[in-house]
């Protein structure tokens, strides 16, 4: 059927519009001040996110993506129910840090190797599982949720955020798509 051609052409959401829209979406709102966590708690959570998803091989990690901003904003809004879990978990982490290294002020004063040792003690706890999930979401959810600053998390995965691609897409289809 030829139906729709004239109608659709007049009102089409075209490629340029889509690209402009996509670029608007990249402006992340990064919290400069935490709302749910105290500055000291935020430092601990930030350190945790860095150990869960560290920057490696020249790629950014959760800290560069601003996962903390997502976590804090979520705890201040739709994830408020988990604030006690976070508060208690952070306190526990600081106690464990002090027990491990005498004189340590808390988790953030440990070396990353020591932090990993403490994390291994609590790996199975609901607190760590929650922080792990929130770190992943804060790194990879759209910037409008508060993290994944400038799509840094997607860069970590090698994902370019574009509204249009053309073949070839990957290594294995390069030959066949270049032929076509």
């Amino acid at each position, binding site marked *: *059927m*030829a*139906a*729709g*051609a*004239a*109608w*659709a052409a*007049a009102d*089409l*959401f*075209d*490629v340029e*519009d*889509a690209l402009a*829209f996509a670029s608007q*979406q990249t402006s992340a709102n990064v919290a400069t001040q935490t709302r749910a966590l105290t500055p000291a708690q935020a430092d601990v959570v930030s350190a945790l996110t860095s*150990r*869960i*998803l*560290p*920057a*490696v*091989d020249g*790629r950014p*990690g959760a800290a560069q993506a601003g996962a903390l901003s997502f976590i804090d904003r979520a705890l201040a809004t*739709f994830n408020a129910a988990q604030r006690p879990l976070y508060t208690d978990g952070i306190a526990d982490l600081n106690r464990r840090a002090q027990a491990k290294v005498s004189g340590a002020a808390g988790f953030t004063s440990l070396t990353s190797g020591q932090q*990993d040792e403490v*994390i291994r003690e609590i*790996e199975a706890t609901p607190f760590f599982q929650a922080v*792990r*999930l929130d770190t*992943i*979401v804060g*790194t*990879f*959810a*759209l910037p*409008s*949720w508060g993290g994944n600053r400038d799509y840094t*998390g*997607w860069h*970590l*995965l*090698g*994902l370019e*955020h574009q*509204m*249009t*691609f*053309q*073949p070839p*897409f*990957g*290594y*294995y*289809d390069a030959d*066949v*798509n270049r032929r*076509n």
Partner: protein
Amino acid sequence: MAPQSRPSARFRPNDLVDFVIVGSGAAGGIIAKELSTAGHTVVVLEQGPRLTERQFDHDEFGTFMRGHNINDPATQPHTFRPTPQQPAKQRQVLVYGRLVGGSNAHFTGNFWRMRPSDFNEASRLGGIRGTGLADWPVTYEELEPYYTKAEWELGVSGEPGPFDPPRSRPYPMPPLPVKSSGVLFERGARALGLHPQPSQMAINSRTYNGRPACQHCGFCLIFMCEFRAKSTSMAVMLPIAEATGRCEIRPNSYVAQVELGSDGRATGVTYFDAEKRMQRQRAKAVVLSANGSETPRLLLNSASSRFPQGLANSSGMVGKHLMFNTYFEVNAQFEQPLNEYKSVQNTRMVLDFYETDPKRGFYGGGGIDARFGRYPITFALEGLPRDAPTWGEGFARELGRQFPRTMAFGCHGTSLPLETNSITLDPTLKDAWGLPCIRTTYTDHPDDLKNAAFLGGHATDIAHAAGALKVWAAPVVAQTLAVHLLGTCRMGNEPRTSVVDRYHRTHDVRNLFICDGSSMVTSSRGQPTETISALAFRAGEHIADFAKRGEI
């Protein structure tokens, strides 16, 4: 006829329109278009909002974890129990699109015809004890013109495969460009003597009827297409219906009941508007296309003294024979980047295992396709093999290395219709509108799980033959999450054992019609949308004819 850009119709609830259609998805949109272009006045009631392309996004967190654009467990909770003997617990098991366009608006685009063999399996196999396996009241030959209509009016890309059923016209568009997953899949499948073929997708491979070709952004599965390159009811059918000046799409309209007059005829529906005020839309006839969970719920919630066990339910079959289809994945990593995050979900598949083969010792069949099925969050949560690190340097390194190098082999299989697998009303739980909620009872038939494991074994073989460095799969277990909601108001010639007749008219109420996934008698091989679309084109045509002849 090209739609004119005249404003769409606006009716008042008190206006007596020819048809009220509940639901605007794959079936509702097509029937609205068929009835309005045939000259009838139509109101389409949709519980979700109406979104424009500018409001679409690629928000994985919002969609998968915050319930954006899908049925919302906070306001529409439902309960689940594996068997009738177990207590039902609140849990999100059923997922459907909640917006103008329905689940069809966010579907992946797979568009498979069923085969002649699908329509008479019960008589060919001699039935299967303990199941409700039945023949369809229509044949493939009767439905073929409507499959063709669906492919041409909506717009489908593909080419016939070696096992395809007879078709009266070729595909309107050539296949989409192959992805790396498709190339590898084809390599592996051919090495095993299988017959890989391009995936048949309701996505444009070139400009079609004024809509552009796919731009390969990669967000088809559970997202709406900003470019209108996905050939959905929302993008194609609803605009034509509205352009007739006889069809109104009314969003944010949550239907409560189908109303029945003292003469036993439907008089319209009651619904809650956006402000939760009760409204009543009068209509000469009612069409339910609300999906395989909400359609039976609506009938059960419309019980009356005349129909104490639910409207149009003298057979007792409303809500029964729920089928989910089985879906399992085999995952594989390759040496070089595939970049599966680009373009459509899948570009190659095999249908060699489509038919039931009694030699296997179980009912069922299906298809296997090359896909990815992950977005960034889901990949980080479940995209690495089980022995991969879950945090730390190793985790970060593996995510970065494997995201571009991973693909999945999707196994789409049959579900047997069982009376115990059902949609009923929860005896106590109410939704935010005060209506009884859905209670789902579901356990896969053992044959369904055997078939899923069988397909998974072949998918594993294909992955190895394709040269994967690592292949793994989650175990095949009973399904507790469903996006295909089928079979709950099945078609049939016999009023004692089916809800609608071969023209989708309910056996019990002359001016009440049902067409959606609930009409399906068997489950398809895991891709029901084209069959639902073909049924809707056929139902729309017949219902319009009945109206013309005064037979409603």
